[in-house]
């Protein structure tokens, strides 16, 4: 059973998230209402995954993010899924900079899409990365403003790139875009050639390459 920690200062939402996780078969081992409590309880309970609100006491600015970055160094195998009221690609980048393994950043609203939210929690716990589609759109949009190689991608290739950046597997991409897995593979190879990225069979490493490219 996966052990989870929920850090969120609004009590109703905190309980709601804990409920969703419990229902999905995870064990919620601890709850935290601020950043200090988060740090203390991760150290005490050693969860596999922490769902963390960015804006929490004590300063109500980016305390959750800073705590998460501190935890990355201390517990490299802890999966951290940040929840944010706003789409701040800057915050997502700061989290990824501290390590892409088991890191996720989602808009808070996404917790309502229960199935997809639970899927994200599992992916992060397993060491994968998850980015909110809106954050990916901003990152891709930012790169697209340069007249760089991103502009040479076809629309379909861009869709595939975005889904890869969100942390989806080839199978998930194929399902989302109603394509065969083989077609997805072909698009990915084309993307890597156009962006001049090293071809790699491993999905996780490919995601990292794409993220690195988008953040550069």
């Amino acid at each position, binding site marked *: 059973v996966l052990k989870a920690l929920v850090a969120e200062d609004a009590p109703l*939402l905190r309980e709601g998230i804990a409920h969703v996780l419990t*229902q999905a078969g995870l064990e919620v081992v601890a709850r935290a209402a601020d950043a200090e409590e988060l740090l203390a309880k991760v150290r005490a309970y050693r969860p596999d995954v922490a769902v963390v609100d960015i804006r929490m006491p004590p300063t109500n*600015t980016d305390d959750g993010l800073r705590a998460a970055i501190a935890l990355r160094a201390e517990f490299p195998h802890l999966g951290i899924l940040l929840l944010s009221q706003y789409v701040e690609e*800057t915050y997502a980048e700061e989290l990824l900079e501290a390590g892409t393994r088991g890191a996720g950043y989602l808009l808070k*609203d996404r*917790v309502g899409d229960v199935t997809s939210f639970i899927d994200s929690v599992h992916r992060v716990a397993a060491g994968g990365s998850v980015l909110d589609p809106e954050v990916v759109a901003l*990152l891709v949009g*930012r790169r697209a403003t340069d007249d760089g190689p991103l502009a040479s991608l076809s629309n379909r290739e861009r869709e595939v790139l975005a889904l890869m950046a969100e942390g989806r597997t080839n199978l998930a991409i194929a399902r989302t875009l109603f394509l065969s897995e083989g077609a997805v593979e072909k698009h990915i190879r084309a993307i890597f050639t156009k962006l001049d990225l090293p071809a790699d069979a491993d999905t996780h490493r490919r995601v990292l390459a794409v993220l690195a490219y988008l953040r550069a």
Partner: protein
Amino acid sequence: LRLWLVAVGAAAVGLGVLGAPVLADAGRWQHPALVVALGLLVGWSFVGVGLFAWWRRPDNRVGALMTAVGFAWFVAGAGLVRNPLLHTFGQALSGLYYAVLVHMLLAFPSGRLSGHGRRRVVLVTYVVAVAGALTPMPFLDSAAVQHCDCAGNLLLVHRDDRLAAALLRLPEILGIPLLLAVAVLLARRWRAASPPQRRALAPVLGAGALAAGLSGAHFAVSTGAAPRPVASAVLWLALLAMVAVPGAFLLGLARTRFFQAGAVGPLVAALAEGPGAGRLRDALAAALGDGTVQVAYWLPERGGYADHTGRPIRLPAETGVSGRAVTRIERDGDPIAAIVYDTALAEEPALVRSVTAAAALALENERLKAALRARVADVENSRAQVVEATEAERRRLERDLHDGAQQRLVTLRLNLGLAHQQAARDGNTSTARLLRDAQAELDGALAELRELARGLHPALLSTRGLAVAARSLAARSPVPVKIRALELPPARLPGPIESAAYFVIAEGLTNVAKHAHATSAVIRMCHDHGRLSVEVGDDGVGGANPGGSGLRGLTARVAALDGTLRITSPGGIGTLVHAEIPLPAANGAAEGRVSC
């Protein structure tokens, strides 16, 4: 008082007239007429000048002290006559004039002895002067000792020449350290004096110190065994120096008078040229000869005084305290201004009066300007407060939205999600569809709320600063944005400036997306000589309307920070929004660093 002064003057004249022939007859000097004439001149000039000063400044004791020196001088003269009674009396008090002179010098110009040191020195001087003359008298046969046809000493008990001579040397021995102490006190006084004080002190202290020194020397040589020519030379010099003291006093008065006449002329000329903001003060300082002069203008609406820039000034509570004196200038009973100056100038009230009278009109003018500046400062201040309050209110609203409505709606969204999952699991498709629609509706509402809150105050701006927030804006723009420069001062800018600059870019990019039909936009931020320059440009159709509510609000927002917003939007070749906002000194305005 006048009658009393005249009486005193008449007494002095009478004493002199009666005493002169007697003295001249005493046969003690080679040139009796000349010595007596000089002696008379000394006594009369002290009494005359003293009475004059007394009359003009009744509450200043210097006049009385000078008069006393004159009389003590006559008393000392009495010691030289043949009448035994007068001789004894005069001989006993022969040193008194000297003590009074020292008293007057140390008390000059206020007439008061300030400080224990001075009071003690004066007291000791009196004691030494009187006791020193008195103690030898029981043993001194003046007639025999001084080899003259003098009167006998009535206090003579037993003639003992050696003892008398020894006792006569006593005041001399004590007098030297006393004289040194006086010199030290006067030197200290001079060192501590401000230029206007020195102007008043110089003649009297100079002549006085000379007279005291020479009189001391005269005592020494007349009792000692100095050769006759030396003794008589010292006598002449001492007499001349004594005459010089009242003369110097008159000179000092005349100097301040001349000084007044000389001061007002250039002041009037300087005022006619129309002195600028701070120059009126400089002109007054020059006219009064006091570099420390402060001019304070009365601001009725504040009920207080301020300098020419409108900054409040507190007047010294009372004239003379802390070395500062105040003269308030009124017109038709209403205060206009006050001049704060060195206490020494209080000794020259006529100068202050004539200078302030000459400057009254200019002061009234400057007062109006100062009042205007103060009012502008008030308005700027309250405008800054409004800007800050608005800023704080926006932050508060954003925080309330975040902690309140947004959290509740997200929780609701979660519950709807759970309900939908449940309905789907139960195979209740119509309910599931309804719940799915509700979710979609709520997602829309959440997205709108998010935009609203972000528009109120972006949290990212607070946590990461202007450059990061501007980059984030560029990433969000539907029209591709090129960042030409984002060069800001190293330290974070004040909140209102960051906000204003942020919203210039935000509103600019919103307009680009909405109206410009542009294929690309450019943003640029840099600073130049303490001004932050913020620019949003596009290659669209142009023709932007600066009167539109968005740009108008932006213009007001920038203007509230003393900045300017310019919109260049010729039809067909794009739009450029350019804002310039002055930066505080803390952000490199002082060093004039440039990044544009």
